[in-house]
């Protein structure tokens, strides 16, 4: 390979070689002047001037000249030219972005060390002029190092990284990489994706397209399938016995992979203390369940953990919940006197059946609770009964405005007076008979509304199977506070809502028994009634466990109530000084203005005012996203094709081979080789040699001078 110079003009400095030559010719070695009686004879000698122009120390001169030459050539930045590189289509320096998957599935076996090695390998290829970025992604993405000129920072940052508790989502990471590439002014781009490439994290269209010519490489760290045991979920069945509540946990365990059934021990811990353990046999690539003995939940914020022995993928081997004694929703049912309780049968039975916090049912007949009783009710259901007028009606309206929930099931008798039409959505009309045995069916459901949200996903509830033979005509004008939640397939309104003050009023235009409709006989009836009443009560369902990646606003009373922290929500939201202890032992300041707690670790977060060590801290359980346990890989090329990149090391390189790119490439080659360092080292060595030589010659000269004087 021939030599080339990056800055040939620096060779002009070779003229400096003349300096030591002139010095050797003009300057004699410095010696102390020898006193002499008279120089009258010396001045006459023509020899002295000739002698001064002679070079006596050729070796010294050569060393000095060579040292100068090396320094000058070093400044000219020499390098060995590799024509194949210069002639290649590769442009100048590369903007290289490495996407590192840090979802919790990367903790399996040796995936993470392998991923780190892959990242280091990707950065080891970086040239001196390249810029490198390291983006870690799971459900979100974060640029650990962005467009850094050297990989040293990345290597340092890599040591601090480890798999998190969040699931894989390729979109955020790819989007951030796209942003980095678009912001770059370099000629070529390269993206390296290091992941186990779970299909769960890929939606198929992330809306990311890399700049043209971006070379995309992938490094998969999931070479073989795992025999993974995972706790897919834990459900709780509540049973109230007097003042106490008994909870029966049931766990579902899924096994992916394996060839033979294995027996594992499932343990149950309450507040960190193991209370039960049950053996269970896991079939290959199958699932099984285990039901523990009921446990009594006597205290709030009881931390419940179900676990199986750790395997190659540990994060999904535990499941955390926080239990508190349930708070039943007090529901008063007022039915038409003529219907008796038979018309309430399905409704009452549905409300009585509850595996969770449940409902406490009050009311017999058509009576409306007095004022004191009304304050203890969350929901009043007027089942086929007119809205009372006079004092009772006014009391109910006042109660609704203060936060009560009123459900009016129209039936035959459902109506309200003109004085109270302001609290009801729309106006009820006469009974309409649906023609034929086919009846009407619910069609237009607002699945974004909390009442129907649980039925949004497929196979989560089939309202279309329920037939409605009769219903009241119902005219509703939707507005800011009025909303139609369900319609029949003829477009008429089935369920409407009106917000009144802090309360809610819902009107169901049919009945909730089996006379006008067979909805009560359908599986969706029970969850529908539960959801309807629960929504009307204004209480959000309590969440025993969050999924990693969610955010809890501790300053939001509703959110805190959903988290089971309703009773402390007021104290916590009122406090401006809060602190959260993370499952990994860290702490996060949740002072005013920073009330959002990112639940990004699996385990129990504890929230408390700073400096206080409560006996039973307020806890929030967080579990990893179980979908991440599905380790089915995707084809990395699918991802590469989707983002528009070229595959593999031979791909890409469509950057124009401009003179600027060539210049940058030459500079890149020079910086890679850094021959100037060796030249400067050589020059330094020569200068040391020059010093030694000069001292030696100086001593020799002085010695000779003394000898000459002595002998003369």
């Amino acid at each position, binding site marked *: 390979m021939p030599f080339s110079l990056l800055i040939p003009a620096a060779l002009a400095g070779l003229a400096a070689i003349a300096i030591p030559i002139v010095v050797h010719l003009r300057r*004699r070695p410095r010696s102390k*002047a020898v006193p002499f*009686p008279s120089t009258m004879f*010396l001045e006459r000698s023509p020899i*002295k001037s000739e002698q*001064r122009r002679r070079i006596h120390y050729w070796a010294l001169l050569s060393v000095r000249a060579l040292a100068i030459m090396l320094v000058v050539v070093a400044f000219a930045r020499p390098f060995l030219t590799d024509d194949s590189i210069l002639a290649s289509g590769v442009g100048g320096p590369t903007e290289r972005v490495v996407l590192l998957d840090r979802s919790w599935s990367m903790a399996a076996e040796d995936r993470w060390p392998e991923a780190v090695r892959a990242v280091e390998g990707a950065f080891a290829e970086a040239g001196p002029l390249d810029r490198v970025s390291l983006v870690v992604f799971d459900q979100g993405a974060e640029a650990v190092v962005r467009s850094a000129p050297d990989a040293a920072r990345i290597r340092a940052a890599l040591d601090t990284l480890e798999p998190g508790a969040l699931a894989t989502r390729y979109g955020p990471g790819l989007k951030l990489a796209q942003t980095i590439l678009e912001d770059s002014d370099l000629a070529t781009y390269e993206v390296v994706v290091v992941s186990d490439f779970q299909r769960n994290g890929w939606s198929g269209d992330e809306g990311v397209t890399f700049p043209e010519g971006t070379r995309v490489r992938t490094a998969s760290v999931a070479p073989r399938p795992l025999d993974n045991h995972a706790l897919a979920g834990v459900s709780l069945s509540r049973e109230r016995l007097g003042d106490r509540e008994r909870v029966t946990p049931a766990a579902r365990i899924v096994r992916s992979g394996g060839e033979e059934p294995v027996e594992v021990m499932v343990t149950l811990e309450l507040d960190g203390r193991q209370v039960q353990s049950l053996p269970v046999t896991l079939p290959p690539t199958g699932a099984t369940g285990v039901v523990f003995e009921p446990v009594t939940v006597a205290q709030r914020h009881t931390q419940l953990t179900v676990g199986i022995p750790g395997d190659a993928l540990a994060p999904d081997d535990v499941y955390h919940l926080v239990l508190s004694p349930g708070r039943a929703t007090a529901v008063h049912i007022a039915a038409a006197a003529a219907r008796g309780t038979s018309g309430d049968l399905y409704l009452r039975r549905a409300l009585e059946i509850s595996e969770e916090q449940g409902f406490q049912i009050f009311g017999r007949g058509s009576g409306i609770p007095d004022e004191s009783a009304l304050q203890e009710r969350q929901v009043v259901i007027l089942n086929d009964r007119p809205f009372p007028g006079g004092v009772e009606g006014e009391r109910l309206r006042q109660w609704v405005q203060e936060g009560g929930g009123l459900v009016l099931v129209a039936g035959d008798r459902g109506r309200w007076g003109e004085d109270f039409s302001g609290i009801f959505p729309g106006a009820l009309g006469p009974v309409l008979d649906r023609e034929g045995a086919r009846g009407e069916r619910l069609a237009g459901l607002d699945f974004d509304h909390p009442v129907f949200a649980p039925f949004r996903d497929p196979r989560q509830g089939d309202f279309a199977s329920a037939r409605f033979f009769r219903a009241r005509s119902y005219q509703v004008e939707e507005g800011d506070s009025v909303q139609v939640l369900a319609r029949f397939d003829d477009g008429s309104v089935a369920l409407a809502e009106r917000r009144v003050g802090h309360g809610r009023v819902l009107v169901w235009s049919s009945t909730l028994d089996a006379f006008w409709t067979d909805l009560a006989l359908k599986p969706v009836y029970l969850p529908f009634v539960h959801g309807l009443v629960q929504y009307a009560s204004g209480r959000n369902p309590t969440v025993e466990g969050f999924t990693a990646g969610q955010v809890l606003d501790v300053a939001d009373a509703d959110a805190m109530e959903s988290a089971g922290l309703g009773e402390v929500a007021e104290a916590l939201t009122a406090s401006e000084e809060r602190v959260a202890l993370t499952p990994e032992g860290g702490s996060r300041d949740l002072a005013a203005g920073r009330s959002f707690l990112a639940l990004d670790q699996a385990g129990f977060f504890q929230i408390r005012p700073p400096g206080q060590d409560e006996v039973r801290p307020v806890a929030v359980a967080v579990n990893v996203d179980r979908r991440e346990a599905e380790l089915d890989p995707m084809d990395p090329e699918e991802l590469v094709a989707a983002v528009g990149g070229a595959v593999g090391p031979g791909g890409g390189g469509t950057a124009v081979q401009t003179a600027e790119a060539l210049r940058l490439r030459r500079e890149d080659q020079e910086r890679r080789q850094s021959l100037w360092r060796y030249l400067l080292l050589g020059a330094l060595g020569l200068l040391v040699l020059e010093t030694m030589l000069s001292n030696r010659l100086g001593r020799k000269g002085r010695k*000779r*001078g003394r000898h000459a*004087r002595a002998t*003369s």
Partner: protein
Amino acid sequence: MTHARARSTAPGAQFLDPRVLARIDNLELLARTVVNGFLNGLHRAPHLGLSMDFAEHRAYVPGDDVRHLDWKLFARSDRHFVKQYEAETNANVVALLDVSASMGFGSDPHVTKLDYARFLTACILHFSRGQRDRVGLVTFDEGIVDFVPPSARNLELALHTLARVQASEPGALRPSLLDATERLARRGIVLVVSDFYEEPDEVLEALRLLRGRGHDVIVFHLLDPAERELPGGESTTFEDMESGEVVPVVPNRLRSAYREMVENHVETLLERCTAERMDHVLLDTSQPLDHALFKYLTIRERKARSR
């Protein structure tokens, strides 16, 4: 080293070796020691006295000047005796000593040219005083530094002056000798001790002033061995001790030419002095002092005979 060996092997030279003499602080003691030792070494030499006052008879030994045989005594005793006379002259003997800076040079740090000249002058003055001469001393560089007029009582003063002279200033022969010539009204023997680093014409012009007054001029031309050989090796920078001029040279290359120039200079001075009826004695400071004294006595004897 060869010079040192030559000095140490010369018979009877240890007292007259300048290196040995340099250890004697008292210049009078030094002069007396040298002169007496020197004279003892010449015990059969015929150069004892130059005056006409009879001192004693001594048995004739071969080599004595037959002119000093006492024929009358031979007639009476039939034995040969020679007459010895007390040296008794009334000549003025004045030493003109160059104390310019160049005289401070000495390749042997113990014996500079000035030291050598000081020993020589002291000895000659002491010897002359023993001959009943009036002795005087003039030291000069650019001009006269010290002037001790010739007198029979000024030996101590002259020696004391000699003891404290220092070579520090540049020298100029002509104005100094012109001044001395004007001060030395009575004719006498004038010793000029210098290294004569001036052009021969200028030196002779200055000496001619003394000679023109009728003085018997004896020129002691002092040179250090290094001055004749040029020290140094490949590259040496010489500094003129009087002008301060710095001359970088390569002695190895210059030595032969330099030596030739110095020899020519000495030869020229010798020839010109001889032509002007002045005695020129070239003295090497590495040589024993008796050589210089012997030269002096020879010249005195010759002058006495010729008188």
